[in-house]
């Protein structure tokens, strides 16, 4: 069942060497803002044509998993997610780096990524056919509610000012509707500017909203970018291990969420990490420390986004439907290599699939030394770099990163404009993370909502279609619980305190 006999083939010297190189390349590419895991895998495809099918798949899997983890570096050290799936890593990673715990944050991210990656890979190895059924059970209504579940995180992000947080989230949702409407193909909110026809791309928006405010503040004072403390050197592996596995439930829950969200075509690592972050925050005893440098936040996001790697490959292999954009490229490469995805893939070509999955497991394990090593040097480089080089280097990376997504100068202008807007709004209490959340989840929410409404209207009851399906009801219950839980726990706490006082 687990294809143990193929483990030896996976650890052949050529597979091992290429997996190691793949993880290194993926980690570096993922760390560069603007270069996504999709781009990392896409660049590699032509190089894999001459390889054996299984070696080609292992290299792509290694690059993919490395790139997803690599996004955490810039999220932690520069407050700029290297990939969209590392958005939530900025919430606690950057505050940790600011207070001098950047190396610890990187080590925690590495351990969490490896744990999540292993859970996703083992799910792919053991229960793929069953999990693929989950993907088929998700319709537009479920996608809509999943997006709403992600949006509930706004409540957590807008500490002290919920209305401003929701307003910022709505602004992000509104930005997501710019461009050609997905269902009706109407041109919306472009105000006769052709540059806006394609809508606001996520990566330039992310770079602008997260990185430009950091640059604005960074250049305004002679202070060091990150605080240097006595603990600022070394891997701090023991401490990281303790922080990561102190709450094993957090790791397991986030990895499972990541695997399941990864299975859903089109959802991806960003939603997985946001939902996991929200859940980690909701169930933590130290809710108020989230967003201020709580390691549990990094653990949740990083284990979830790396779990989507294995999760996303489930529908890719079993149904031929890619779970995430990099999976679409892997699917294309598989077909070029003569592999036909489908339910019988595991029985027809076990030597390829099982060897690949074991290769993915090995690549994920290799990520531990590679990630720690690269992370340490990235942290030291950021600490050592004089401001006169750090600021312009980041400026140039933001410009190239924003341009590279669609080869568009207009995206650079959008990045800069959103950066300034983000800085002003965050200065006056409107969190830029809420804007980003709205921007990312807006498209999924709108598409899900409109499709559900059309299907429901055809069936004669759109409302029932929206709320009446079993999985939808489950997610709605979860959303209501996530709102009710803090209120109930607050009420219970105040009652407890009142009883102490009366005693």
């Amino acid at each position: 069942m687990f294809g143990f006999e193929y483990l030896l083939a996976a650890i052949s010297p050529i597979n091992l060497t290429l997996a190691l190189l793949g993880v290194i390349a993926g980690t570096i590419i993922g760390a560069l803002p603007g270069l996504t895991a999709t781009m990392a895998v896409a660049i590699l495809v032509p190089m894999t044509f001459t390889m054996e099918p299984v070696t080609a798949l292992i290299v792509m899997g290694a690059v993919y998993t490395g790139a997803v983890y690599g996004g955490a570096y810039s999220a932690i050290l520069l407050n700029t997610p290297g990939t969209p799936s590392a958005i939530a890593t900025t919430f606690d990673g950057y505050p940790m780096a600011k207070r001098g715990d950047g190396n610890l944050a990187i080590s925690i991210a590495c351990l969490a990524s490896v744990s999540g990656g292993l859970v996703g890979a083992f799910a792919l190895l053991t229960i793929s056919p069953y999990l693929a059924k989950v993907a088929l059970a998700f319709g537009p209504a479920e996608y809509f509610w999943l997006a709403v579940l992600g949006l509930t995180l706004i409540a957590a992000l807008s500490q002290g000012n919920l209305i401003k947080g929701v307003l910022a989230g709505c602004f992000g949702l509104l930005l997501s509707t710019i461009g050609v409407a997905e269902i009706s193909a109407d041109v919306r909110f472009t105000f006769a500017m052709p540059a806006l026809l394609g809508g606001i791309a996520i990566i330039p928006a992310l770079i602008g909203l997260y990185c430009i405010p950091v640059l604005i503040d960074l250049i305004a004072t002679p202070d060091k970018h990150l605080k240097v403390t006595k603990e600022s050197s070394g891997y701090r592996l023991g401490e990281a291990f303790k922080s990561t596995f102190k709450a094993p439930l957090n790791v397991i829950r986030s990895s499972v969420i990541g695997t399941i969200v990864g299975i859903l075509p089109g959802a991806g690592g960003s939603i997985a990490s946001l939902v996991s972050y929200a859940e980690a925050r909701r169930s933590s005893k130290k809710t108020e420390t989230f967003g201020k440098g709580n390691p549990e936040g990094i653990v949740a996001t990083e284990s979830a986004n790396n779990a989507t790697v294995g999760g996303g490959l489930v529908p890719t292999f079993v149904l031929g439907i890619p779970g995430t954009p990099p999976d679409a490229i892997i699917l294309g490469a598989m077909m070029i290599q003569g592999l036909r995805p489908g339910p019988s893939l595991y029985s027809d070509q076990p030597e390829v699939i099982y060897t690949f999955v074991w290769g993915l497991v090995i690549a994920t394990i290799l990520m531990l030394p590679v990630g720690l090593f690269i992370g340490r040097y990235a942290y030291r480089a950021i600490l050592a770099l004089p401001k006169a080089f750090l600021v312009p280097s980041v400026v140039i990376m933001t410009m190239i990163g924003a341009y590279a997504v669609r080869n568009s100068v207009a995206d650079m202008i959008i990045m800069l404009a959103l950066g300034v807007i983000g800085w002003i709004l965050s200065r006056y209490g409107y969190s830029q993370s809420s804007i980003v959340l709205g921007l990312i989840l807006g498209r999924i929410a709108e598409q899900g909502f409109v499709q559900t409404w059309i299907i429901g209207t055809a069936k004669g009851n759109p409302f029932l279609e929206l709320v009446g399906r079993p999985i939808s009801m489950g997610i709605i219950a979860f959303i209501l619980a996530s709102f009710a839980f803090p209120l109930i726990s607050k009420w219970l706490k105040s009652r407890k305190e009142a009883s102490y006082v009366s005693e």
Partner: protein
Amino acid sequence: MLVNKLRVKDTAGILCTAILMITAAIFYYDTTTMVDSDSFVFPRAIIMGILLLGMVRLCIDVVAKEVDKRPALNANYLRSILLIVTMGIGISLIPSLGFLPAIIITYITTMYLAMYEQWTLQRRWSYPLISVAVVTALFFLFERVFIVQFPEGTLFY
């Protein structure tokens, strides 16, 4: 954010809310030209949300007697403004100069803006040289390895 404690009324916050509401109103006006209800139902719902929440926020900010004390900025933001202007100029130079010259100019200008240390003779000649090397290396990495097509300047055709 670079701030210190204590300061006055949340006028800027009120202004931000008002600008968001005006933006939402402009977007609403644009939806009136759309024919298909699938195109405007979702944006209109969000716009209504912004307008309603904005009004609530404005009422709280304007009517409330006690206002949150907003911390004041304690940094010199002239360099920040110049940074944004530099980036803007750098981007606008791309179509005419091409990508590489435009980002080299942006890099060197930003480097001067971010320089808080003493300009020694060695730094005067070494820093710009290193800048050109760094930017050129990055440019070729993206162009050759990541196959990003950068625009060439019309000035050099």
